[in-house]
């Protein structure tokens, strides 16, 4: 490990060489930044990973069943396990998807599950990302460069190779492909995650396409090529639902594909991830995921949720209002680290305002106990310091199997007082090692 730390500067130079960047918009202007990388990896033992892997597969399988149910028979609502309020009022629920079963019945092909490890050694799920979770490309390329800069480290530590993400992605796409080419669909060069879009297209052997490159004719998606138009069998889209088809969703979208929904509805193209998945990764629905696992799989959840309260329920609301100063309050409509409030950091006046908002709109919030999660060491100059960090695990679901990528994106906060690890808010990333023993 010391060898890796000694080569940290070299690794960062290599990351710059390959343009490992993310974009942010500040004051209406687009800026690209190198994603700060810390050479000290998060290390997960084989035994620990075994349990995580099983738990993640279990969770994603249940979430896929939930999506199929909620846009189909709605048994889980009829049986009173999930209140209909949490489904139909979710901004991620799309009535346009009612009755549509995606190709091979898979909804969330690429799931990003965020976890933290508590000081008690228990892994807690923080949230599920089933729409367009990003971040796999960073540890993927970082591993390649770390191996180049410090080969001895990898010769002696028994780290599972994570450089197969491109193949896993390709296998997932191929398994639902309806006959045609695989496409990664990007909103374009000025998207925050453009590096990732182009890198994953390359790694998965797919074609990178933007709005003008694709069109729908007779409910079939085509790619405009100089060799004639080619049918598209699977599209890994990195554009939000609402912008994907201006004839179905946001009419003003210029980055979508008119009539894509018709091709999707007809089963002529697989869209990864499926439309409408937002209903299952809504922060309000999160509370119900352990119940889904019991309901659909008849199993006990392997992984824990962070202790969560729903002000929607009177009993929970009372608890939340009584303990606001110790809880983490999350606005279910926000993402990317926004809309997260630590009660302990609010003034009396702010607490009072939040209390009134919760009373007026209880469905809009969830509250969680602040998990005392393990800090990870990072290098700050020559000094080693401890910072908050989470882990995004990537779970890939194809027609026949669900697998977990043996790695993940470990993000850390660079601010010693902050729990917010998002890159858009200044966070950095680490490699995640899964040991073979």
């Amino acid at each position, binding site marked *: 490990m010391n060898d890796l730390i000694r080569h940290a500067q070299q690794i960062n130079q290599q990351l*710059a*060489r*390959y*343009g490992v960047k993310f974009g942010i918009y500040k004051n209406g202007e687009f800026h690209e930044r190198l994603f700060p990388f810390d050479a000290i990896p998060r290390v997960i033992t084989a035994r620990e990973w075994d349990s995580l892997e099983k738990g993640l597969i279990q969770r994603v399988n249940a979430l896929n069943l939930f999506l199929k149910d909620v846009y189909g028979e709605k048994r889980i609502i009829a049986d009173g396990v999930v209140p209909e309020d949490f489904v139909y009022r979710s901004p991620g629920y799309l009535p346009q998807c009612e009755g549509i079963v995606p190709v091979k019945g898979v909804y969330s092909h690429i799931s990003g599950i965020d976890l933290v490890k508590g000081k008690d050694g228990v892994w807690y799920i923080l949230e599920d990302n089933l729409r367009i979770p990003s971040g796999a490309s960073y540890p993927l*390329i970082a591993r390649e460069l770390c191996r180049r800069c410090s080969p001895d480290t990898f010769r002696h530590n028994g780290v599972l190779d994570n450089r197969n993400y491109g193949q896993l992605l390709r296998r997932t796409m191929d398994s639902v492909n309806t006959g045609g*080419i*695989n496409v*990664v669909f990007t909103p*374009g*060069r000025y998207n925050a995650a*453009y590096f990732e879009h*182009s*890198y994953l*297209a*390359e790694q998965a*052997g*797919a*074609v*990178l*396409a*933007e709005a*003008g*490159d694709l069109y729908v004719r007779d409910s079939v998606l085509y*790619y*405009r*090529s*100089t*060799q004639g138009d*080619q049918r598209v069998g699977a599209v890994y889209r990195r554009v939000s639902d609402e912008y994907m088809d201006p004839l179905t969703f946001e009419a003003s979208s210029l980055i979508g594909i008119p009539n894509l929904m018709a091709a999707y509805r007809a089963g002529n193209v697989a869209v990864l991830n499926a439309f409408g998945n937002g209903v299952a990764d809504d922060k309000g629905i999160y509370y119900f995921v352990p119940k889904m696992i019991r309901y659909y799989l008849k199993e006990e959840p392997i992984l824990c949720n962070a202790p969560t309260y729903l002000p929607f329920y009177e009993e929970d609301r009372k608890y939340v209002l009584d303990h606001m100063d110790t809880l983490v309050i999350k606005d279910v409509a926000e993402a990317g680290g926004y809309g997260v409030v630590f009660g302990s950091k609010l003034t009396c006046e702010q607490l009072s305002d939040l209390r009134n908002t919760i009373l007026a709109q209880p469905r809009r919030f969830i509250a969680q106990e602040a998990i005392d999660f393990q800090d990870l060491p990072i290098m700050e100059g020559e000094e080693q310091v401890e910072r908050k960090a989470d882990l995004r695990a990537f779970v890939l679901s194809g027609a026949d199997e669900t697998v977990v990528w043996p790695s993940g994106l470990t993000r850390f906060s660079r601010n010693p007082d902050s729990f917010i690890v998002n890159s858009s808010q200044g966070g950095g990333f680490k490699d995640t090692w899964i040991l073979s023993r």
Partner: protein
Amino acid sequence: MDTVTLSKQNRLFWLGRYAERVYTTTQYMMKQYDHLIDGGTVDYGTFCQKMGIPCVYDSGDDFCRRYLFDSLSPYSVRSSVEAMLGNGMVLRETITSPTLAYLQMAHTAMELAAHSEAPGVELQWVLDDIMAFRGSFDDSVEVETARNITKAGGMVERISLMLRLDWQLERLDRELQKLMNRLYKTDLTPEKDALDVITRRAVGGEDIDRVLLLNSVEGLFRV
């Protein structure tokens, strides 16, 4: 896997043009810098006129600095480096990450040059990285059409700069013939009138008015 779309054709072509523009104008400006060391002057007014860009410079020194490094000017070499990298970035899965890395390195070298008091060494790195890019591009890009479109773009730019700047004109006929040979290996459809003019010069050796030839080269492809 790769397929060339119409929009990709455009990017490939302009990638070639910008890479060549950066390469040739950097070489040209390094000579101007060298000239200034001995107290020489730079006829930047004529340069701007020939290039068809606004002459907003106060002195030879100012010209050397700002034509190379002014990030706000769309005519600067630095802006051409941005455009070169921008076109490369949207072609990653066609040109591959290792090839794109050379463009990224050229960009990094140009940024270092822009902040250096003696940028000659960093500018040399820009040239080195573009040469490495060309080698890697040739080796990595599987689709022959894609390779040829970028090369054709580079040739159009090189000939355009030769004609504009009266620069290395002794190589003009050879470059025109190379362009003619390359033309038929792309999927691009040339403009007939422009092609006629170039053919008359390249194949027939006819003495063609410089402006007509320049316009024909610039208008050869509508991409």
